[in-house]
């Protein structure tokens, strides 16, 4: 079902010439919205959920953004297909475990996805490469206005947008920025950053959200508070902290390079060698080596234009993507396929140049 979508996505991200930024991989904004007079999904029966779903689907079909997009009802997707959508960050793990009555709508440009009957009736999200919160907010806000015009949102003057869980109350806005932080990780400063971020009311998670580990030195940093602060203040506060983290990350890399030059060059060269020639590799090992290659690009050891390719490989080597469309392949075959993809792609890369 999702074959065409995935093909299109892979082709698009492989061809993309837009510049990927060095520390921030992507920015994502999510709004939680509910319809008034309907119970939240966890308390709605299947008839109510179907009705909510069809009301929202009808409205989405009229938006220019979703008109030519894809709409999937959860019960129509295999577990492997769901896994692939999670790896693309189009749906949450929670939605991937839901059955009839829940669905996802993905826009034709693949930047927007709307989950229906996840924890809330609507979860609207936009993802873009790079560090782009204000521009992204304008897009999300405009899209939300379009839906608000047609759907009777649950809203109270006191509590703002009403959500199933009070942690999302108020603006319903979760802003999450995916960051590549190898410098802080290898210099053992990442714990400090996580603790400081937590104290400032921000959550730090791994690549795939809650509970996932930070393989590839990739972290998602997001706001936790949604009530008592405007959308702009939430985004400004998050951006302020992130700018600080970016600075610490870049300084961390330079300092590490100055103090441990041979060690860093060795780590990067080994990663390059392994990705270029391994025949069996699991996703964790691959992620960690790709992380060193991404940092090598940032340090100027490889041309900048390959950063996009590395970001693309981070997703393409995930277990679901490697298996797809064959759901029955063994772990060993997966590791063989993964190594093959990496070898093929690394043929395109020039040699490391440490003279710069």
């Amino acid at each position, binding site marked *: 079902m999702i074959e065409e979508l995935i093909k299109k996505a892979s082709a698009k991200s492989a061809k993309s010439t837009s510049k990927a930024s060095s520390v921030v991989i992507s920015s994502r904004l999510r709004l939680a919205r509910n319809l008034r007079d309907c119970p939240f999904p966890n308390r709605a029966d299947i008839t109510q959920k179907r009705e909510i779903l069809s009301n929202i689907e009808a409205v989405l079909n009229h938006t220019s953004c979703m008109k030519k997009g894809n709409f999937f009802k959860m019960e129509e997707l295999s577990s492997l297909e769901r896994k692939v959508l999670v790896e693309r960050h189009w749906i949450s793990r929670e939605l991937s475990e839901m059955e009839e009555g829940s669905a996802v709508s993905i826009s034709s440009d693949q930047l927007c996805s709307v989950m229906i009957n996840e924890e809330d009736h609507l979860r609207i999200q936009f993802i873009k490469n790079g560090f782009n919160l204000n521009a992204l907010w304008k897009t999300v806000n405009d899209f939300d206005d379009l839906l*608000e015009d*047609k759907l009777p*949102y649950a809203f109270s003057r006191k509590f703002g947008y009403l959500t199933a869980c*009070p942690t999302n109350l108020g603006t319903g806005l979760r802003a999450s920025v995916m960051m590549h932080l190898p410098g802080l990780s290898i210099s053992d400063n990442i714990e400090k950053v*996580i603790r400081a971020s937590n104290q400032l009311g921000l959550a730090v998670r791994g690549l795939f959200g809650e*509970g996932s580990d930070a393989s590839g030195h990739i972290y998602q940093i997001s706001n936790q508070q949604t009530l*008592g*602060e405007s959308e702009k203040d939430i985004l400004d506060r998050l951006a302020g902290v992130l700018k600080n983290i970016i600075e610490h990350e870049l300084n961390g890399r330079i300092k590490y390079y100055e103090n441990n030059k041979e060690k860093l060059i060795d780590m990067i060269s080994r990663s390059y060698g392994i990705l270029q020639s391994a025949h069996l590799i699991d996703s964790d*090992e691959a992620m960690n080596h790709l992380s060193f290659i991404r940092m090598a690009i940032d340090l100027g050891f490889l041309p900048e234009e390959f950063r996009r390719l590395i970001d693309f490989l981070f997703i393409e080597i995930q277990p679901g993507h490697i298996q797809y469309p064959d759901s029955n392949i063994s772990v060993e075959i997966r590791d063989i396929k993964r190594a093959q993809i990496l070898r093929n792609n690394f043929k395109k890369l020039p040699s490391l140049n440490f003279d710069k």
Partner: protein
Amino acid sequence: MSNKLKCSLCDENATVHLTQIINNQIQKIDLCESCAQKKGVTDSEGFSLAEMLSNTDYSSNSLQQNCKSCGLMLSEFKKSGRFGCTVCYTSFESFLEPILDEMHIGNQHIGKLPVKCLENISKGEQITLLEEKLQNAIKCEAYEDAALYRDELNALMESLNADSNNDNL
């Protein structure tokens, strides 16, 4: 880097690593996300709604309190951290306020206002007000006033209905 720890309870990859000192002995356990949640293990640095709710004192009577619309009991909310419907926010408001104070920056929404939604809220408020006036007018036998209120009320109801019909398009 590739030899990942497995969850001690199932075979999934472990992402929660808990170290406890029990009777001067260090006990280590590795859990996957879902087992950690089932066992109530949460990140002490991070923010935990479950923990906050379980630390809030409720008398056993209040736990039996129901939402007047969806019937959700406060005890169910305490367990899941999820409300059943929008009316739960009014039904459990007094329990919610201390939780919101701890959870968020403030307890009053400052942010985007959905224009159309607010129109309907204020229409709803006007309707309640007019209904009261109408009843009073009838009680006082001021039938001319009552007729005026009735017309105004009908017009408002009509415009509200028109809105919700458009909503269901």
